[in-house]
């Protein structure tokens, strides 16, 4: 598009926005003096800002298009290049490890606490990534399994005194079980229908927790959930936080380890094939339903473990922690980070969870910012911040 047309278009957009925002940005009714103030300066500002925003937007769109034309082959994300290069991999991973190990000792407890939350989202994101990113099943009720894990720990501890370390593996099993139970009826649906039904299921679990007073203590929730112990030893508040931090780091590493293995195994390939083309996938001998169910159940496994960690960390849970917004936040982590890309999801979780914590001003508009980010990412980087890269196999030249 020639520059002249672009200016024209941006002018039109700016003008349109000026009219659109006129009632809220310009007109101000003074209820005390019964007068109407016209804030014409705002009028001008809206126009100017929209004009430049539109110009910049167009500029990036064009640059993006041109880039696509020039380098099709060379689109491997920088971080993958770093990790594939032997010279950089070690020092890079060393730096990352050093940072995360030093983190709780360098920064105050408040920051450690926030980092734990973010890391739980890394776990949740990696779990949901199996369902949405790899298998292509839009699951809007993921939070249900998170709740299952959290309530499993809270209730089993309350009634039977079971400790964190006992419940953690149990919750993994429970998550899988619930994944299968919920997945069985709904996975026959496709696309949008699946999204709506899973959304419904997620809400059902929350509403049950809210109303089944005898079981879950209703909206009052459950308190005094103990932090994890260290071979029977219970730490003081500060040390407990640091301990929790390293448990979560361990769990995240375990998640990365297993998810990576799954992704590049027979079952992981089947997930991706199913996402790409259901019919061809079945024609290649893959059981569609079983493959979907495994994805759904494995995703639930990690959500439930995340739930246990969440309960142990906050020491209080109630149904309000498991609303649809939680599902959507986790979904944003996956989509913005990069569908199907583990590194992308990790980056997505850290960015999306840490940013609002530190930019308190933004926190209120969290969903607005997520939405805007979503649009920007979808337009400029449809594969997410860090897109997925498939494994490269090497073959020695065979002698004939």
């Amino acid at each position, binding site marked *: 598009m020639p520059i002249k047309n672009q200016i024209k278009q941006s002018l039109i957009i700016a003008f349109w926005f000026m009219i659109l925002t006129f009632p809220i940005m310009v007109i101000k009714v003074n209820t005390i003096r019964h007068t109407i103030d016209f804030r014409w300066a705002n009028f001008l500002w809206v126009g100017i800002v929209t004009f430049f925003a539109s110009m910049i937007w167009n500029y990036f769109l064009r640059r993006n298009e041109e880039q696509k034309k020039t380098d*099709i082959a060379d689109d491997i994300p920088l971080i993958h290049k770093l990790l594939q290069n032997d010279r950089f991999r070690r020092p890079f991973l060393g730096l990352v490890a050093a940072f995360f190990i030093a983190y709780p000792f360098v920064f105050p407890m408040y920051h450690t606490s926030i980092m734990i939350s973010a890391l739980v989202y890394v776990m949740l994101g990696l779990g949901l990534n199996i369902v949405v990113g790899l298998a292509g099943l839009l699951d809007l009720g993921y939070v249900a399994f998170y709740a299952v894990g959290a309530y499993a720990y809270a209730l089993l501890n309350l009634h039977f005194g079971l400790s964190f370390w006992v419940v953690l593996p149990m919750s993994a099993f429970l998550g899988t079980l619930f994944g299968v139970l919920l997945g069985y009826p709904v996975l026959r649906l496709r696309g949008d229908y699946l999204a709506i039904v899973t959304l419904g299921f997620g809400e059902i679990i929350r509403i049950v927790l809210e109303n089944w007073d005898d079981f879950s203590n209703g909206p009052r929730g459950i308190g005094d959930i103990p932090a994890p112990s260290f071979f029977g030893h219970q730490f003081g508040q500060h040390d407990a936080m640091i301990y929790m931090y390293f448990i979560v780091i361990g769990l995240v590493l375990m998640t990365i380890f*297993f998810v990576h*293995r*799954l992704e590049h*195994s*027979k*079952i*992981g*390939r*089947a997930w*991706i*094939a199913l*996402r*790409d*083309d259901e*019919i*061809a*996938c*079945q*024609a*290649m*001998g*893959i*059981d*569609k339903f079983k493959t979907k169910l*495994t994805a759904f159940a*494995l995703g639930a496994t990690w959500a439930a473990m995340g739930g246990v960690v969440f309960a142990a960390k906050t020491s209080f849970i109630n149904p309000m922690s498991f609303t649809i917004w939680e599902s959507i936040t986790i979904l944003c982590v996956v989509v913005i980070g990069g569908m*199907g890309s583990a590194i992308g999801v990790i980056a997505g979780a850290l960015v999306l969870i840490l940013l609002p914590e530190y930019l308190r001003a933004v926190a209120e508009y969290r969903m607005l910012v997520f939405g805007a980010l979503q649009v920007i990412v979808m337009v400029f980087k449809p594969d997410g911040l860090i897109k*997925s890269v*498939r*494994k*490269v*196999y090497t*073959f020695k030249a065979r002698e004939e």
Partner: protein
Amino acid sequence: MEPILNVTNLTMNFGGLKALDDVTIRLEKGQIAALIGPNGAGKTTFFNCITGIYEPTTGEVQITPPGKNTQSLKGLKPNYVTERGIARTFQNIRLFHGMTVLENVLIGRHCRLSSGIIKAMLQPPSQKKEEKKAVFDSYEILEKIGLAKYVNDMAVNLPYGAQRRLEIARALATDPFLLLLDEPAAGMNPQETKELDDLILWLRDNENVSILLIEHDMKLVMSLSDWIHVVDYGKKIAEGTPADIKANPDVIKAYLGEESDDA
């Protein structure tokens, strides 16, 4: 000897439309047979009925895999049909975009691998060995089909002709005794078509597969096929050797006539 594929009185209705009407087709072991007919005649529907993507309204589909008993495919889901040894390609290429060429072929191996989820996570030696062998076998198939140089490329980035060959490679990876090819030469240039001709013959002679192909390229059909079935408006109107078919007045009227005008 029993035919390896025995389709009797197959009928497929879509609402009021009879896409297939009482079609009977047999295929002998080692045969290259062609299924021809004008567009919309019901050829792809025939493939879909055999492979379990559609469930035929009436009729019977039986197979006799080499060295095994005769069995019915009726009501089986597509993945079970593939497990029983029938593989196919698609008229409109359906490769897996998010995967490399090698992984596309690996998907074909899927139903011949046994390791489950637990093994995938723990990776015991048996799983590693199986995975390694699967990768090796898939690479070998790519070498045979002539796609080894693309092994780590994303499937979507391949040239068109190579994508069609990759579909064949992927189908071959499922260890079929019968290969169904839906318009494998569509969109290929004469050079690529020639190579496809060689490939199909080579497959029959060296991989022990019988082949049923749908094709519009008459030169290819006539030179390759041992036997030709002709359908028109869902009905089978003729079958025979290429020479018979060329001489059959019904066929000329329904199909070859229009084609040979502009050829």
